């Protein structure tokens, strides 16, 4: 019997609903990203704004085209907000002054190859924003690591020209990110005690080199807390992930401060917060049980630390999340809640009879 021929009587119970639809959930997530995004605009100027706009528009366009091709009406499905959220998250993880076509390629990639080829919302194995980011990083390493110092934000029009590639970015403004800097210094044989970490002093307010929306760690964390209080996400993934970054980092730093960055820097840098609260918590690509989510979060965190510390790329969150995404089906198969009245193996629990009191 197929799903179509199954009569699902609309009159069957329950006759009430929690009322939270997918679009509402997605829009709430988007809303919690607004402060960090606006702060990013302020920090990096209008090129960041234009890039953000272009990326989201491309993500939506990619989704619409795929749905059209699949013979479905795109309008109601675009309203679920998932493509908007994907584009938004991708934009936040891009270098703020990246050229326009980075946004276009990334946005299109995210929703078409990252999501719709798998069968659309709910069927993709990997987080679409992160897979697009990795694709960009691998294909365009230069543009994807072209960071600017947050200073002297250009006006709207100048910003647009920068994004469109008509004004070259002044050399003085480019720089490496904190993690990237540490990486190159280590590679050059300079230990971290004698290196000057750029922008470290500004870490706490996020005024430092980095992606469009990742530097304002506190605003992102605040957004994450808002998601927690709205019960859109639970603590399991973010807490596990942040802990699994912080604990090995703290141990490493205690053992050899010259080789290992301390844990606060780890948490405040790169996409750790964005990853923990907004990327790894993606419903579709993370396990559906609480225990599974803890395992998943721990895996994401640990891999992030390992890649950052020993890997070739300075930033590990995107890779870590994708690797764990690939493990999600296995986690879901292995970690299941115990059914009431059954043992962990699924056998009915034994009956203890008698007058035990």
């Amino acid at each position, binding site marked *: 019997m197929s799903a179509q021929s199954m009569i699902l009587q609309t009159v069957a*119970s329950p*006759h009430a609903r929690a009322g939270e639809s997918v679009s509402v959930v997605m829009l709430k997530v988007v809303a919690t990203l607004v402060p960090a995004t606006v702060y990013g605009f302020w920090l990096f100027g209008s090129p960041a704004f234009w890039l953000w706009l272009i990326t989201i528009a491309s993500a939506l366009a990619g989704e619409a085209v795929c749905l059209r091709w699949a013979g479905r009406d795109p309008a109601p499905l675009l309203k679920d907000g*998932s493509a908007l959220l994907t584009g938004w998250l991708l934009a936040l993880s891009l270098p703020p002054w990246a050229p326009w076509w980075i946004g276009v390629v990334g946005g299109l990639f995210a929703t078409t190859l990252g999501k719709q080829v798998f069968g659309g919302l709910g069927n993709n194995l990997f987080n679409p924003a992160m897979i697009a980011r990795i694709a960009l990083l691998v294909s365009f390493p230069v543009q994807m690591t072209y960071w600017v110092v947050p200073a002297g934000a250009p006006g709207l029009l100048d910003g647009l020209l920068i994004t469109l590639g008509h004004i070259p970015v002044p050399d003085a403004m480019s720089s490496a990110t904190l993690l990237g800097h540490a990486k190159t210094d280590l590679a050059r044989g300079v230990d971290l005690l004698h290196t000057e970490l750029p922008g470290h002093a500004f870490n706490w307010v996020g005024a430092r080199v980095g992606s469009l929306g990742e530097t304002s760690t506190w605003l992102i964390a605040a957004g994450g807390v808002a998601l927690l209080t709205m019960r859109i996400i639970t603590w399991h993934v973010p807490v596990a992930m942040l802990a699994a970054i912080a604990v090995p980092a703290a141990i490493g730093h205690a053992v050899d401060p010259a080789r290992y960055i301390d844990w606060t820097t780890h948490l405040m840098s790169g996409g750790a917060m964005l990853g923990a609260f907004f990327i790894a918590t993606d419903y579709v690509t993370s396990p559906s049980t609480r225990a599974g989510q803890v395992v998943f979060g721990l895996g994401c965190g640990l891999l992030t630390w390992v890649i950052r510390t020993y890997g070739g790329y300075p930033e590990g969150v995107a890779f870590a999340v994708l690797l764990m995404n690939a493990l999600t089906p296995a986690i879901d198969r292995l970690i299941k809640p115990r059914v009431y009245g059954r043992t962990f193996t699924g056998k009915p629990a034994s009956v203890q009879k008698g007058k035990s*009191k």
Partner: protein
Amino acid sequence: MGLRELLNGVRWGVHPHDDHKRPAADVPLRVMPLPERLCVPLLQHVGAPALPVVKVGERVLRGQLIAAAQGNVSAPVHSPSSGVISAIGEVTAPHPSGLPFAAITIELDGKDEAGEPLTPQVDPFSLTPAEVSQRIADAGIVGLGGATFPSAPKAQLGLKLSVHTLIINGGECEPYLSSDDSVMRVRADEVIDGVRILMHATGATKALVGIEDNKPEATAAMRKAAEGFASIEIRPVPARYPMGSDRQLVQVLTGKEVPSGARTASIGVLVNNVSTCAAIHRAVRVGEPLYRRIVTVNGGAVAQPGNVLAPIGVLIEDLLRFVGLKETPARLVMGGPMMGVALPHAQVPTVKGCGGILALTAGEITDTAPSACIRCGSCVKACPMGLLPLELSAHIHAGEYDKAEAKGLDDCLACGCCAYVCPSHVPLVQTFYHAKGEVWKRAQQKKRTEFTKGLAQARKERLEREARERVEAAARRKAERAAQQAAAQQAATSASANTAGGASA
């Protein structure tokens, strides 16, 4: 509460933000005036339908037996008032299918003349447990929480399996409903007395009354009524749906789980609803059969929502006329919004297990078209049984019923929590209803095939046996014939020899 529970909150179920219980719960109980006609269904319980013992045209009195129990798991039906039987036939069942089912229609004469009580008044504690059970059975008491299992066989089962604890369900977790709440507020003494009688009937030594913590008045009234009975404990439980489900209530009150596929009695507890206890009190103390009950009439379309003491068998339209309608309801539901059934129309009678009638407006039912599952896990977190609704549903849609069964389809309570929370409005519990029906059908089919196979096998064996017997008989006959022939031949030879001898002699 362990650390796990602390971190995760109550780990199952849902907490509807607005339980819609007020103001209906706080309005004083009203008694519904007698309508002109009642349609008293013959099947108001699980088990065999009752058998009519009256004829069309006969006059009946209030409390008089009109249909007798048929079989072990069944319950008799009594007339809710006095009047004349006008029909014994089919009316629409309280079911969305709108299928007909048998009922006795009584045109009331308005005199409400009472018949004899079923039994003389006695002290229930001077009776044997068997006698108490008999009185409960004669009064037609069934579980009033909605399960409608006849109470007497349940009590007997408890006695047989030596249960030690009675769990009294004052949970009433469905939104909108407050009939149990109302019983506890206005009839707390009767409930407690019913609990004591039931303890006597089942041999239980302890009773735990679980009342959701959103019913402070009921808890206070019950506490007062239970004063002086040390073996009866009133225990507030968190207001959380489905707290009224046996398994969940047992878990919260005793910390034990009922094994999958087993009855609560197997761990020494028996669950009864508070309204049932009040009915048992009346049945055993004064011999009053179950012919009326408190029904919550609620919903956005109702002008004066509240609790109504109504005769069983009253047509929903009469009940709604009594409370008034503000607008035409978009949906009528018998029971609560989580597990209740939608009614095809209002010409449907109430039954013993009906604790509420809801007239819901379009805004209250919010049917949204389903979209794809986004794997949010909300259904997993909500399921009180620890199932994975999204997986079950996927298996069922793929036609893999055996996999769904292996993953606990049978354990599903059909409580609707999963469908309630799903942001994609995936019709989860609806799919499970369907699958349970399908699995049942397949099991029936299998049984039938096995039966026919058995028949065929038997036939084959019989034919083989017959053939064998025929062959054997033929062989026997042949052997006999051969023997006869041999004998005849021998006789002939000896005769001829004799003749020859004679001739030669």
